């Protein structure tokens, strides 16, 4: 049984190498050390943002003011930008529509969401996780 397990892992590794999947992008092990703290921070952000959006949805007047804007990114690599973009999408109330080298295209549900992102706190934290 154990042999089969090891065999499976070896086979998948071979296939993944063949698919050209294993590199710093696919398996960002160099980020692991700094990531957990960021995850906890992100979890708290998610809870806060959820609270806001839930209040908006339950409000009978449905007070949304959807807006679309761009925020600059300070990350150097693709993977940093991807972490940033996914963190933005993961916090309800803001969705990342597009990514390019210097900016993210964001859609936000309320003005609060926009203000939160424009302050750039998440950007800095992601850059710190990226560690460049």
């Amino acid at each position, binding site marked *: 049984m154990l042999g089969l397990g090891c065999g499976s892992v070896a086979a998948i590794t071979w296939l993944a190498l063949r698919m050209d999947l294993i590199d710093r992008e696919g398996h960002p092990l160099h980020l692991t050390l700094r990531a957990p703290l960021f995850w906890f921070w992100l979890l708290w952000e998610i809870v806060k943002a959820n609270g806001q959006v839930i209040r908006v949805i339950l409000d009978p007047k449905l007070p949304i*003011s*959807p807006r679309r804007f761009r925020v600059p990114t300070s990350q150097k690599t693709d993977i940093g930008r991807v972490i940033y973009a*996914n963190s933005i999408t993961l916090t309800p109330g803001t969705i990342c529509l597009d990514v390019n080298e210097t900016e993210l295209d964001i859609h936000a549900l309320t003005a609060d969401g926009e203000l939160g992102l424009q302050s750039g706190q998440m950007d800095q934290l992601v850059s710190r996780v990226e560690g460049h």
Partner: protein
Amino acid sequence: MMPSLLDGLSWLLLLSGCACLLISAIGLIRMPDLFTRMHAAGIGDTLGAILVLAGLMLQSGLSITLIKLVLILFFLLFTSPTACHALARAALAGGQKPLLAEPNADNSPAEQSPS
């Protein structure tokens, strides 16, 4: 003492998770256009999933089930924003225009205060 505390906590987590999922579904119905609906769906994908799975984790104890639940949560948190982003991109490419509060001002400060 301990087991009842754990039970109570996981009750709380499960029920609030279900409430989150319900709210997200309500939002899915109430919101006026695709992009705002995505925000509503995001609640269920993040907080709802986290709370429900956390509630189950408290019940599973230290076992392989716990690891599997953590993996489920991990995968959900990875795939759902990606799917959401891909959907938004595809919708934009397909000619869907997001409904905006002030259609012409792209980067103006907020004035229509929410809730």
